[in-house]
Each structure stands twice: as structure tokens, then as C-alpha cells.
């Protein structure tokens, strides 16, 4: 028996919209949830508003986003984990809709809109909603505009997606541990969150899915507000090296090659048959 259906993890470092995000989640959730905010080396001012569903982990010094997610997951009591950035708005009942359709080896992402954090409303932007993303030939996640605009695909409310952005993801807690998330040693504190999740999932026999029956809106941070994390170049190259290893062997539980994933979604922008051939013969 788990006391909650969903544990929502919010890693936060100097996040000015953390309270908004928490309030939004607590207001919009319809099922049994707990929110775990991980304050990574700072206290928000003003203090977070107490709520019986809100737990807080406070680190005396910043240990990084992956460590924060892991700390939240370690004390989470829910059957499912939903990780959200600290600047997101959700659709009513998001938690119930996500739990309704989530196989034990799925990673699910809701449809994504763009958020105006100051007005706390959706930004009308023709690029959105984003349902699909692909991994480019340098293994970056890129919005798959062709698929996002496809009226036929829009009718398909649950569908596979090759990759995602990483600002929100949802999966069974057991699956989180099965995927050995998050790997601080290989990937470092911050970068390439969804490359780690998506590739571990797909290439060990799981599926990354978009659930278009519900949505969230994410504020794409600009330099105006600054990033929560100051990112050293070393951390980024560490993460890139870890991602790059997927071209050969990315993880000890991997059962499928990267070429299998590309072929499953073929044609994938930026991937030519030659590149796929090179990847499958380890020559990329």
C-alpha cells in the first residue's frame, strides 16, 4: 500500500516561481498526491506556504539537480513520480489522467505549452503545443514540428515520442529505480536529463509516451531571470560524453542499439541512412 498515488518532485535552486508552481500543482491535482520541494542550497523568500501535502528537503549547499531529484525520489511515498521544473503550470486533473494510462515501463510526458510566468497564463505561440520531439544526429532533443502540426497525429491521444524536453516527466517509482535514475556520477549535476531518461527507457525495452489528454505549460527561461544553476563547462562536457556513449554502449542494462530507436521513428530529421549505418557499425 502506498499512501499516495503520485509524488511530485520539484528540484529548485533560486527559483522565483516555485511557490506559483506548488500552488498550481496543489490546486489542479484531483487525486492523492504529495509534493516534495527540494530547496537546493537556498531558502525561498517569502517562505513557502505550509500545506499538508507539501514536504520540503533543504540542502545546506547546492548538490545539483540530479541529486535533488534523487533525494526527493528517496523519500517519495507515491506509486508514481512526477518531476516538474519549478516554473510550470498544469491542467486540472493532470495527475488522474496521467495515472490512468501508464504502463510499468513507460515514461509519460503531457502535451507542452509555453508559460508566461508573470501572468501565469499560456503564451499564444504557433510553435505550441509540442507533443513530439526527436533526437538529432548529435543526440539533442529537438521539437518535431512536422509531427506536432500533423492533424492526423493530433487525433492520437497517447503516442510514442522519441524524446522530450525534460521539464516534466512521469513514471512509476519502481521504474525510476529500475532505470537507475538519476546517474550523478556519469551525467553530473544538471545536463541532459531527458537524454538519460529517454535513452535508458527506450533502449532497455520501455517506451516514452506523450499523453495529449492533459497538458502543462513551461516557462522557457531566458537570461533575464537567469538560470538556477550556474553551469560549469566541465559539467556539460561530462554529460555530453555520457550521452555520446549511447552511440556504442550507453548503459549496462541496455538491450537495444541506438540504431534501433532511429529506425523505429524513421525518417528522423538529420539522420541519413548513412549515419544510421555508421551508428549501427559503431563508426559514428
Amino acid at each position, binding site marked *: 500500500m502506498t499512501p499516495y498515488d503520485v509524488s511530485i518532485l520539484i528540484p529548485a535552486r533560486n527559483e522565483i516561481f516555485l511557490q506559483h508552481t506548488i500552488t498550481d500543482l496543489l490546486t489542479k491535482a484531483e487525486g492523492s498526491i504529495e509534493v516534495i520541494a527540494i530547496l537546493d542550497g537556498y*531558502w525561498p523568500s517569502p517562505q513557502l506556504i*505550509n*500545506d*499538508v*501535502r*507539501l*514536504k*520540503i*528537503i*533543504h*540542502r*545546506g*549547499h547546492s548538490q545539483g539537480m540530479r541529486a535533488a531529484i534523487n*533525494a526527493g525520489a*528517496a*523519500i517519495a511515498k507515491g506509486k508514481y513520480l512526477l518531476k516538474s521544473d519549478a516554473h510550470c503550470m498544469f491542467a486540472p486533473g493532470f495527475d488522474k489522467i496521467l495515472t490512468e494510462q501508464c504502463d510499468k515501463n513507460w515514461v509519460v510526458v503531457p502535451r507542452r505549452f509555453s508559460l508566461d510566468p508573470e501572468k501565469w497564463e499560456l503564451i499564444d505561440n504557433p510553435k505550441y503545443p509540442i507533443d513530439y520531439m526527436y533526437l538529432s544526429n548529435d543526440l539533442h532533443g529537438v521539437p518535431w514540428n512536422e509531427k506536432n502540426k500533423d492533424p492526423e497525429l493530433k487525433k492520437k491521444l497517447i503516442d510514442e515520442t522519441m524524446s522530450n524536453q525534460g521539464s516534466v516527466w512521469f513514471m512509476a517509482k519502481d521504474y525510476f529505480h529500475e532505470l537507475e535514475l538519476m546517474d550523478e556520477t556519469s551525467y553530473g549535476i544538471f545536463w541532459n536529463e531527458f537524454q538519460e531518461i529517454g535513452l535508458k527507457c527506450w533502449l532497455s525495452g520501455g517506451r516514452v509516451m506523450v499523453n495529449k489528454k492533459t497538458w502543462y505549460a513551461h516557462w522557457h527561461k531566458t537570461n533575464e531571470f537567469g538560470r538556477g544553476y550556474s553551469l560549469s563547462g566541465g559539467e556539460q562536457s561530462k554529460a555530453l560524453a555520457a550521452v555520446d556513449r549511447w552511440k556504442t554502449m550507453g548503459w549496462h542494462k541496455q538491450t537495444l542499439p541506438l540504431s534501433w530507436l532511429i529506425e523505429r521513428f524513421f525518417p528522423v530529421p538529420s539522420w541519413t541512412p548513412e549515419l544510421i549505418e555508421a551508428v549501427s557499425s559503431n563508426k559514428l
Partner: protein
Amino acid sequence: MSDLSILIPARKEMFLAKTIEDILQNIEGDTEVIAVMDGYWADPPIPQHERVTLIHNPESIGQRAATNQAAKLSKAKYIMKCDAHCAFEKGFDVKMMSEMHDDWTMAPVMKNLHAFDWVCPDGHRRYQGPSGPCQDCGKPTTRDILWQAKRSPNSVSYCFDSAPHFQYFGEFSKRPEGQGDITASMSLQGSCWMLTRDKYWKLGICDENFGSWGSQGIEVAVKTWLSGGKVMVNHKTWYAHMFRTQGGDFGFPYPISGSDQEKAKRYARDLFFNNNWPKQVLPLSWLVEKFWPVKGWTEEDLVKLKANTFKFGALGSDIKPAESEPLEDKLPFEGIIYQALPEDSGPTGDKSIKGIIYYTDCQLDPKIAEPVREQILKISEEKGLPIVSATLKKMDFGVKNIHFPSLKKGYPAMFKQIIAALEHSKSDIIFFCEHDILYHPSHFDFTPPDKDTFYYNQNVWFLRTSDGHALHYDVNQLSGLCGYREALLTHFRERYEMILKEGFSRRMGFEPMTHHRIKWQNDYKLGTWISEYPNIDIRHPGNLTGQRWKKEQFRNKKLLVNWQESDDEIPGWGKTKELIKKLS
């Protein structure tokens, strides 16, 4: 990544910040703190520190669950769980880690923490306890934080009886196997223990099925022993724990209904007494036998336990066994300490070898009491003998005064005062001083040659205040007792325990080791000496014991050695008529 994570589950704990501050001041290794504010926000708040992680639960999830929560955030090799009202010795973390074995659970020596006093605007102090107005003057009091580890007791051995109830197991530390720097303990008190993180999870050290709280020490200790490990106490370092036993706003912060306690005990019985714990490689009878004889276990219990036919008796009514203070501690805890001088400043500045304890019911006519005190004080100053006084009313006398406003005058109170004074004294050799004896300075020139002998100065004259008649015979009186503090303390604690059980009787008498009517567990030898000049025992209408002035009044005349009477002079003191004038 740290070597040691100190986990602190806290619920409504006002000393959480203080405990964390103490830890941060005293750690010397790569040690971190993970504290859980279980259903409350710490007030005062915890200052941000790079070595501190905090968890806040909006509603209390219970002490075991909170400890597990904190443990989940640890990546250290070792885990130490401690209560949120503890102080530590400098370098305790390193001293603990350097003695650790991977299959051990270890605790430091446990001292008692004097965290605070209640103080009123007039300066009356009351020992830590529930809040409330000053008991001397009724004015409001505020908390004065002292945060001092007491010198004694130093608890190093624990067990549980067949209930199972937690017990202090001082007897074990007197056995040969209880000697040394690292000693085994059958059980633990529960407020501080350390083991590897690996074992913490493998042994399921905080099983939430035990309920939120209760039997924590037993669970940790028994799981360690029965899985093939050892439970050890490290005498090379200590922590000090604040006991909260007086209820009100000085009670236990987790709601512990009797039924929850019962639940924990029942679960413990089921798991351990019926050998139902899947991870055990040894039966519980092995553990009991290893420490045999164990307080609260009969031979019959053990035989049945070994034959797997053990049946529990009715559970007692004590609801928070491990939160009870060490027995030797119960006494001063009820008293109120007034410290006139800082702990370590004896009159000479150095640690005094000899010292005085003074006890009184404060009901003696001041015409007698004051000259007596003046005389003791003069000697104390001249000879550098610090006085610790234990009195029923508050009194500014000596380097330290412990007073007991709620105690009634009588023999049990007197013994209690003696224990309190002995506990608070820092001297090795103690002279007992009573309120109606004029002590001669030469009395204190004696140095007892043997640590295990109680010595009585037989040079005493009785002086009748009504007419100045004086009488001497060689007699051993409590007021003339001198001995080593440690031995005296052991004896008076045993004596007090017996009085609690059986009441005081004349059979027991007042003067330890002067007869063999009582079979004491801790036996000491009797010694006597004759000081150069006598002390004067002032016989006045208020004496607790009556006085016989004529030989015919004594049944056993053999006791009347060196009988002398005088209406004129007492050696060293001059005319008795002059003396009684000074006392009236």
C-alpha cells in the same frame, strides 16, 4: 560524500538548533547532519550550513519513519541516530568511527544534559522542567540555557527485562567483562547509536511496524546481536542526553499512548521472543545467557526461553521506559541546582582532592545553624575544601547548592540530599558535615588510606545546650564520616534504592558499614580515626535522634568505650558554658 550522517528525527523539539550547533562545533571528521522536522518548523530556525540537510514533514510521520526518511538521504558509510536534545564531546565522530567494526552497533557513554534552568527576575533558579512561575517568589520565569553535560552518571550498560522493559544495567559494568574502553551492552537506551548504513538497511533497523516510537533501543540492539553482530559502548567518548520525564511542557514530544507502547512491545515479543525474525542467526536465549544474570530475568524465564515455552506475564504500566533517567540520576533531577561558583573553580583553582558535603532540612534554629555553617565555611576557606550543599530550601552555601522544595523532612529526604551532594561534588575524598556539629579544623586533616573503607572520626563530644553538660564515648556517627566519593555514592544509591523498596528502618541505621544487619550488594570496610581535637555534637530539642546521657540508658554497655563526662571544658574548645552562650 560524507563518512558519517547524523540523523535527527525531531518533533516539537526546541533544542534542535542547539543540538545541530553542538554537533557542528564538535565534529572533526567528514560528518553531515540530516534532521527531520516532523510536523513542525524548528523555532529557533536552523541556520543554513553546508553540512546540514533538513526535511520538513507537514504532518508527523513518527520517529522511526522520520529516521528512515533521513537515512534515505544519506550516502555515508556510517549512520548515527541521535535525539534532538543532545550534546557531544569534541571529536566524538572521529572517536566513534575509529573504533567501529562493520557488524557493530556502537553508542558513546551517555551523560545527562543540563540544558537549562528557569530563572525569575530575582535570580531564583529552578532546574529544567515544566514551565511555570518561580516557586520561591511566584514571579514569571524565563529559560536560561546552560547546555552542560553533567559529570555523572556515565551510563555504559543497558539491558531489558523479560517484559521487555528497558533497564539500566550498572551491575554489568562491575563485572570483569564490563571493564575496558570498549564494552559490550545487552541493549541500548536509544537516544544515540551508530552503525554502518549498509547494516541499517540490511537489518531494517527502524521497522515502522514497531509503531512510531517505543522499544527503539531494544530493536536496534537485539537486531544487531541476533544477526551475529555486537553492541558496544565506546568509553573513549560521550554524549549527553536531556531527559524529559516530568510531563506538562517537559514531556515526550511524540504522542505515546500506552497502547502504542504496548504495540511496540508486543511486536518486539513476537519478533524476538518467539524467534520470528528472519534475519536472526542466534536465538534470544543466547543473548540473555551471554549477559547472565540479567536484571528482571529469573532462572525459570531463561529455561523456558531456551525451551521455546516462554510465556509473558502481564505487562507493567510503565509507558516510556527508555525515557527514564539512569537510576542514579533520578535524585538530583528532582532537586534544583544553584551554582554559586563556576563548575571548575574550587577555592584553590585546582581540582580539590578533599571536599565537604553539607546537608540540612533547614529547620534548625539559626542560633545553632549559623555558627555551625560559619565554622565549616572558615575551615573550607582555610583548607581549600569546596562545599557542596544539599538542602530542602534554597541556600547560598558552598560552591554549589542543590535544593529540594518539594521534599518532606525525614530520613529518605536526608539520604536523597546526601546522594545529590555527592553527585555534584567534584572532590575525591568527602567529609560529611551536618548542621548541628561544630567541626574542629583538625577533623579535616585526616586522609583516608583505603578507597573501599568508610572512616568515622570517633573523637566527638556531645554538648547539652540547656546546661553545658558534655559527654564523650567512642562512637561512629554519620556526621563524622569520611570516605571516597565514588564508594560513598555507590553505597548511598544502594541504600536509597532499598529505602524506596522497603522503607527506612532502624535496622538499617544511619551509619554505613558499622554493623552487619544488612547484606549490601556493594560491601565496604569499616575504619575509624581519632582527630587531634574533637568535634562537638550539639544536642538540642530538635535533634532527629534522641540522646542518652547516662550509662544506664544504654542496653549494650560494651559500646561505651572511653566514657567521659564534663561540665567544664571540651579539649580544644574551652569552657562549655561559654560555648552554649554562643549557641543561644
